[in-house]
């Protein structure tokens, strides 16, 4: 185990606590939008998909990379847009 790995594990451990803390008091009506919003955030896997796909050379790498990029982009874009649509409604009723 390298020192670098320990640093990565540290990020992980701290992020666990932040994740718990940050949504500790959320009203029921926001459960669905919050789930949808956090769903969009794990679309960060698009960064990983791009890193993989960029170097693709063999047919297998190309296929896997392509599918990964399509799936990840759908996750990101769909996730943010659908959440925004949900929350648009909340704003509307306040006017």
């Amino acid at each position, binding site marked *: 185990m390298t020192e670098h790995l320990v640093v990565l594990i540290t990020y992980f451990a701290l992020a666990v606590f932040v994740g718990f803390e940050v949504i500790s008091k959320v009203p029921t009506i926001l*459960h669905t939008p919050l789930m949808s919003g956090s769903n969009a955030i794990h679309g*960060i896997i698009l960064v990983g998909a791009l890193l993989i796909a960029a170097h693709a*050379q063999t047919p297998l790498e190309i296929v896997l990379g392509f599918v990964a990029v399509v799936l990840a982009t759908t996750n990101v874009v769909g996730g943010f847009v659908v959440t925004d649509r949900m929350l648009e409604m909340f704003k509307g009723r306040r006017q």
Partner: protein
Amino acid sequence: MTIATAFVYLLAAVLFIIGLKFLSSPRGARRGNQVAAVGMVLAVGWTVVLLRDAFTPAGIAICTVGVAIGSIVGTVGARRVHMTAMPQMVALFNGVGGGAAALVAVSELLKLAGARPDFQTGFPSVFAIVIGGISFAGSALAFAKLQELMTGTPITYPGQQVVNGLLALAILTLAVAVLAVTGSAVVFAVLLGMALVLGVAFVLPIGGADMPVVISLLNACTGLAVAASGFVLDNFALIVAGTLVGASGSLLTKLMSDAMGRSITNILFGAFGQVQAGLGSGAAADAKSVRAGSADDIGTMLAYSRSVIIVPGYGLAVAQAQHAVRELADLLEKRGVEVTYAIHPVAGRMPGHMNVLLAEANVPYEQLREMDAINGEFKRADVALVVGANDVVNPAARNSPGSPIYGMPILNVDEAHSVVFLKRSMRPGFAGIDNELLYDPKTVMLFGDAKESLTRLVAAVKAA
């Protein structure tokens, strides 16, 4: 990783955290989503800049076309979807993220060309493949159940838990094989295949009513799978963002099941369907009689009430009747009837779903009451008008300890002077349990599509 890259990823991570924070308060929720989106654009945009000299020709092609296709599918899907179908759309967007995480890990392992990965790469890879695969297949099945491409009732068979357990054990064995014995591509493929099967097998015995909790759980799983891919790729943006979602998603799953008055293990392994099969909904329904009313009678009753509490449920959402219900409410208000809406925390198909639908129909915010605020007022209400809801007003949750929904918080509709149910049929609700309130002497049924029934009631109130 260069200093500049590290700073961009750090900024993205901070924006995700601020976004999540805003998302958990009603006032800042929309801005929170936008803040998180900015973080995402930064992280992805910078990654592209970073890779500009590294792209292979094929790499450029698949990235450009892939992002284009994904953006179109995501935008069109998210824009076109009816508000009622929101939950399954979230499931779908979650599942594809899990699938992507699994594929990233597979691709990374393939680079080793059959050599056994060291533990530092191998362990997170296997984790991402298995959890990502489960999330992908489980979400797809959740989508199919909610979209009614297949039955929403739990699918169970004898020894199901044992089969699922054996499947999990087999996956574990293969995972150890990857880590300790071989890096053969065949093993990864089989591992991914088995994870997909387990994802389906895991969601099969869970009923449609519990699907929101399952989707939330799978959302947390995808987050962890993404974090694991971050370890594989040595990329802390993935680790931090994925873990944030994994942790907050787990907590959210618990909050949701708390709102339904159930434990997570009960939802996941309780095989909801098994219990009620014993109680039998058919026998009770045959024995007792139901009072069906006409729209005219019920319209008159509503028009001459002092206070009416409307209880909207999923039936209202399916029939797209939110506008019709508001029209009826407006009409009653004009006649001096006090109208309020009682919103159960899990009305619709997800917590908060009903608020979104009614807000879409411009129902005034002040008329919406949460369960705890309104439960005391049913005693004073002349009429409780239940539109397409069933389980959330079923007194069995309070009175019969044997019932599978026993202990679930409900709206005390049975305390109102009279109860009107707008329902399509006598079919039991999502949980599949009979509702004794339907047979109560003070209950009147108006059968039919919620929207049509409401339109008929509007006409009847106008005539009264």
